[in-house]
């Protein structure tokens, strides 16, 4: 477990460094192409550092807001709060904050940077379909992610990827509107700036699958098996989570409106935006979860 924690901290540092270096290079290139000199580099580095710090300190809040999670009180959700508190006791960490996501698909995730700053979010659908033992299994799995600092890597990845997607859209749009302006006979915005914006947008588009690969590397599929096992160690009852996963598999046809590629890896089970069993091409590219049947099988063998 301690190696796991150290590895996760190392991965997070590498990711942040990677983001800073990458954006720095992009900024440098823009500066050179537009003749702005070092301004581009300085600006890009400032953005990259702000992004990294932001993802570290505010990543959990960004992720929670992006799925429209709402913090609930013990009076509103006594059972959920009791289960979370019980498992925090078992794990020997402070009780994480508790959120509910307004989605019908049963699912859950944990976010934050360490056990002292952790949050656990579950969907409305999960609360409605799971009995106490199954809920304990799910929460124990999330508690294991908190213990292992998987939440740190996961949250930083989610916010960095989210920011990259946002930036690429920004570039594409800037190029698009710039182009429109010129077609109207306006001379401003033509030339190298426009070209650079287009190139950047295109680059990000091409980079998307590579980013998907990076996510897969950063958050290995193995950590789901690990969290399943560690969770079972906390509840001392593997069938609880196995039964919860079976229910989730059965409900896999229910789409999740707030699912997106930047946060998909955080969830207990791969969320799907489209109705039905089939996964979209992009979703498969970003798939970070081992097949649910395999997880159930391993839990049953414990």
């Amino acid at each position: 477990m301690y190696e796991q924690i150290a590895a996760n901290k190392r991965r997070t540092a590498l990711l942040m460094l990677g983001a800073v270096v990458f954006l720095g290079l992009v900024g440098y290139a823009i500066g050179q192409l537009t003749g702005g000199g070092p301004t581009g580099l300085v600006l890009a580095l400032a953005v990259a550092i702000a992004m990294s710090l932001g993802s570290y300190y505010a990543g959990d809040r960004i992720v929670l807001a992006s799925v429209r999670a709402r913090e609930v009180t013990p009076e509103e959700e006594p059972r959920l709060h009791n289960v979370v508190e019980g498992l925090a006791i078992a794990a020997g960490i402070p009780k994480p904050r508790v959120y509910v996501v307004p989605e019908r698909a049963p699912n859950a995730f944990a976010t934050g940077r360490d056990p002292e700053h952790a949050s656990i979010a579950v969907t409305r659908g999960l609360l409605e379909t799971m009995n106490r033992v199954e809920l304990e299994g799910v929460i124990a799995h999330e508690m294991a992610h908190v213990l292992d600092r998987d939440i740190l890597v996961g949250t930083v990845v989610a916010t960095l990827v989210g920011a990259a997607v946002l930036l690429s859209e920004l570039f594409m749009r800037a190029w698009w509107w710039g182009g429109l302006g010129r077609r109207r006979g306006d001379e401003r915005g033509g030339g190298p700036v426009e070209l650079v914006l287009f190139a950047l947008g295109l680059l990000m588009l091409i980079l998307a699958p590579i980013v998907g690969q990076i996510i897969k590397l950063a958050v290995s599929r193995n950590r789901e098996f690990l969290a399943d096992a560690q969770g079972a160690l906390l509840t001392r009852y593997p069938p609880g989570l196995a039964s919860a996963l079976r229910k989730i598999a059965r409900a896999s046809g229910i789409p999740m409106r707030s699912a997106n590629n930047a946060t998909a890896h955080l969830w207990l089970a791969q969320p799907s935006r489209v109705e039905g069993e089939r996964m979209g091409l992009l979703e498969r590219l970003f798939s970070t979860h081992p097949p649910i049947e395999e997880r159930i099988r391993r839990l049953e063998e414990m």
Partner: protein
Amino acid sequence: MWLWIALGVVGAAALWAVWTFNRLVRLRNRVEEGWAQIDVQLRRRYDLIPNLVETVKGYAAHERELFEEVARARARAIEAGSVPDQADAENEITRGVRRLLAVVEAYPELKASESFLALQEELTATESKIAYARQFYNEQVMRLNTLIGSFPASLIARAFGFTPREFFRIEDPERGPARVGLAD
């Protein structure tokens, strides 16, 4: 030359001693923490029991003997001094609470009432929190006792008066009281 080697060995030994001492202190603190958590949860259960008894009394006044038994176990648990005494008394409370809940089975309107459902959720949750707190405590005790018992750490432990702690034992070997009768 030899002096340097000797100094190096002494220095390494001192570093190891400090490191081991700190580990022992950390584990002892975890054990204390675990015990404090058990205590918090047990106290919560002591507070809930009179409520449960009152609620059931309204429907099944003839179970007087059972009520008294539960009250006695509760009083005994509150006064218990050592870890094994406490564990004994708690086992008795658990048995009593289970029998009380079994009595409730015979009264559908009580079972379905809002106040009883809320009370049952609290009781179930407290039972499982006790189980989890016990699990954490026993885990830490095992780690502390293992360290104290194993050579060379045992030298440091003896020198600074670290002694093995007592486990908090419970009757049901598997999965404690939270699973039986109380679940859902």
